[in-house]
């Protein structure tokens, strides 16, 4: 009843090519973004910022990056954690060694560019190896990068323990130290990056990625160059992942060690993309929300309900329930949470008179 596009006529190409051609969608998304910028700071507590919203946004961005590679271009990658680490350490070294550039935007973009360069390097084998074999090759990149940051002392500024820390950070002279400032900065970065990603995937570049994903030989025959297409997917994906890594290090952790970007991070992001929905930007956000928030909610649920339990029991229950939920969602909707969202919209269209 409310969600129906009947009567919305597109009279120009511009109107037809909008990101959200349906008015209700457009209004809804703009309202969500505005609420995130204006309403959330009115009531949010520090815990909500630092432990829920900021991690959710940063890992969503990383999931968007990974989704470009895995979901849109069909190249399975297990090296996401390593690429995040490249972004983080590149940003750290720029911040440390060139103190004149104390501007997080520049620092993060540098992290992204370095990560993109490394991504291209490790993407080269994708031309010859495919599927599971490529996954193994990217796994090698994860281990190599882990090793690099643990062993090359210069990258961690010769700290005895290999753990590095960042101090004061600012953007164009605006010091970012309170949680609300961090949140707004991350939010702005993620919104802009998502907009860029959306326009990439619906333009000719994104279509070339999808052509390669669906059948690379056919794509080659109709004129897409596989090398350029695959490497551009690796580059763009690693760029976003690198920025996310730099933000994770600077704005979430503050002090970190290579362990923060180990193989578990790669798996975590891959699960986000799979559970959220391959080939869907919305899915990246839903998947990140699911993977980050559900364990936290499960962990605190007994407390809210007033049930006294030992923390060990809560910890074990959390694992079991979370695992069961993943299995449940993958069985009932193998295409991910984004597909559920689409189903909900379909139903809403017919509501309240389904045939």
């Amino acid at each position, binding site marked *: 009843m409310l969600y129906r596009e009947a009567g919305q006529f597109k009279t120009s190409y511009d109107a037809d090519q909008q990101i959200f051609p349906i008015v209700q969608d457009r209004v809804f998304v703009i309202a969500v973004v505005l609420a995130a910028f204006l309403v959330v700071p009115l009531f949010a507590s*520090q815990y*909500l910022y630092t432990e829920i919203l900021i991690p959710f946004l940063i890992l969503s961005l990383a999931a968007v990056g990974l989704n470009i590679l895995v979901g849109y271009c069909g190249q399975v990658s297990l090296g996401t954690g390593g690429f995040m680490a490249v972004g983080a350490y590149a940003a750290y070294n720029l911040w440390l060694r060139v103190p004149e550039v104390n501007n997080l935007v520049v620092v993060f973009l540098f992290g992204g560019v370095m990560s993109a360069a490394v991504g291209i390097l490790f993407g080269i084998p994708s031309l010859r190896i495919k599927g599971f074999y490529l996954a193994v090759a990217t796994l090698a990149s994860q281990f190599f990068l882990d090793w690099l940051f643990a062993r090359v002392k210069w990258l961690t500024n010769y700290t*005895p323990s290999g753990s590095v820390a960042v101090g004061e950070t600012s953007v164009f002279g605006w010091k970012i130290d309170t949680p609300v400032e961090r949140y707004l900065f991350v939010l702005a970065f993620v919104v802009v990056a998502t907009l860029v990603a959306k326009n990439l995937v619906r333009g000719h570049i994104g279509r070339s990625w999808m052509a390669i994903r669906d059948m690379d030989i056919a794509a080659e025959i109709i004129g897409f160059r596989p090398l350029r297409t695959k490497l551009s997917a690796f580059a763009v994906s690693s760029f976003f992942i690198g920025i996310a890594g730099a933000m994770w290090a600077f704005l979430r952790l503050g002090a970190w*060690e290579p362990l923060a970007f180990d193989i578990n991070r790669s798996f975590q992001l891959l699960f986000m993309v799979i559970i959220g929905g391959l080939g869907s930007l919305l899915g990246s956000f839903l998947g990140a929300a699911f993977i980050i928030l*559900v364990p*936290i909610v499960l962990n605190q649920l007994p407390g*809210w309900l007033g049930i006294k339990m030992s*923390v060990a029991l809560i910890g*074990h229950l959390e694992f079991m329930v979370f695992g069961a939920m993943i299995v449940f969602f993958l069985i009932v909707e193998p295409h991910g949470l984004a597909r559920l969202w689409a189903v909900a919209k379909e139903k809403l269209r017919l509501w309240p008179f389904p045939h």
Partner: protein
Amino acid sequence: MRLGKAALLGAVAVAAGFVATASTTTTAWAQNEQYLAGLIYRTGAYAPNGIPFANGIADYYALINARDGGINGVKLNYEECDTAYATDRGVECYERLKNKGPTGTAYVAPLSTGITFALTEKAPIDKIPIISMGYGRSESRDGSVFQWNFPLLGTYWSAADIIMQHIAKKEGGFDKLKGKKIVLVYHDSPYGKEPIALLEERAKMHGFSFTPMPVTHPGVEQKATWLQIRQNRPDYVLLWGWGVMNSTSIKEAAAVGFPRDKMYGVWWSGAEPDVRPAEGGAKGYNAAMLQHGAGQFAVHNDLKKYLYDKGLGSAKWDETGEVLYIRGLINGMLGVESIRKAQTKFGNKPLTGEQVRWGIENLEISAARIKELGFEGVLQPMKVSCSDHEGTRAGRIQQWDGTKWTVISEWYESDDKVIKPMVEAAAKKYAEEKKLPIRDCSKEN
């Protein structure tokens, strides 16, 4: 479509959960209670070591409440949060608990080097002191830079130095170490890397060769490392492991025939769960103790009377004599004594982290007080000050005889002539990198 409906309903239910997260629940707090947050781990790969420690802390607080009715009438309200030894989870726990109670948590003991590093960045902003007893950044002992960190009872550098002194003594003096080969098998994380700087310094001073050998988390795969050790035939092996890595190392040492009495573990590698799985293979294995040891002490009489006889203890009675349980007890005791000290200045009421920080920095525990507290035989007298956040640097070496730990050395004190310049240099570098102000300790107190 039934499955689809179920999925939709499931998604709605999960979303409702998120909304619940967003709406912060307000709880009424008893106004005369000191809130204490506990970051511990009873789950995850390191749970066998985490559980006894957590039990020790919980029991000491419970004892204070049951026996004394709190600290000068201020009851302790202790809440645990399980970190599973993961840094991000630990930070989440900290953020969740730090502002609870009338004044927020009095202090935090992260029980993980990784979490300690992360919280070190947050402590000055939140004004909550960190007691990292025997772990964390070694240079954080310098209170002029690390105002909020208290690595009480020794750092990794102190521990490594004590082990080296013991080895030197066995060999007949530091000059006899020339040409010897010493290997460090370490957990490849900030924790394991901490002693390397000190050992390299000692190697330079005395001319022995030093080789660090990393083992990746969680440390169940060490065949290559021990093969290398068999080829190199080092004179001594130092072990900086945690959890399952320790018992694996000891088993591998037995397999390649490296003498266990030439192996020295740090205190994280010197508890019962580390040696028991290796069974007979662990006999003769040594570990550095920073103050604590195994056994029953005077404080156990009270524990039995007020907690265990009433069924209120969190461990089994036999486990209360174990190394990590006692370490938990000591951690609880130092926290309680710090709060008590802070109360002398700020009054007998729940105190903020900032007030308790003053209490820790001015903490002094004399031999008489140690006896009064029931910790005689466990602890050396200690005194914390602005320039020395460690309190005491004394330690002993213990040996596993197959069934229990026995102390095999007298007290050593780590050599400040070696460590202090290193601490100062590292702290200064940290302060410069972070552009932190440096306190002038001569003007304090």
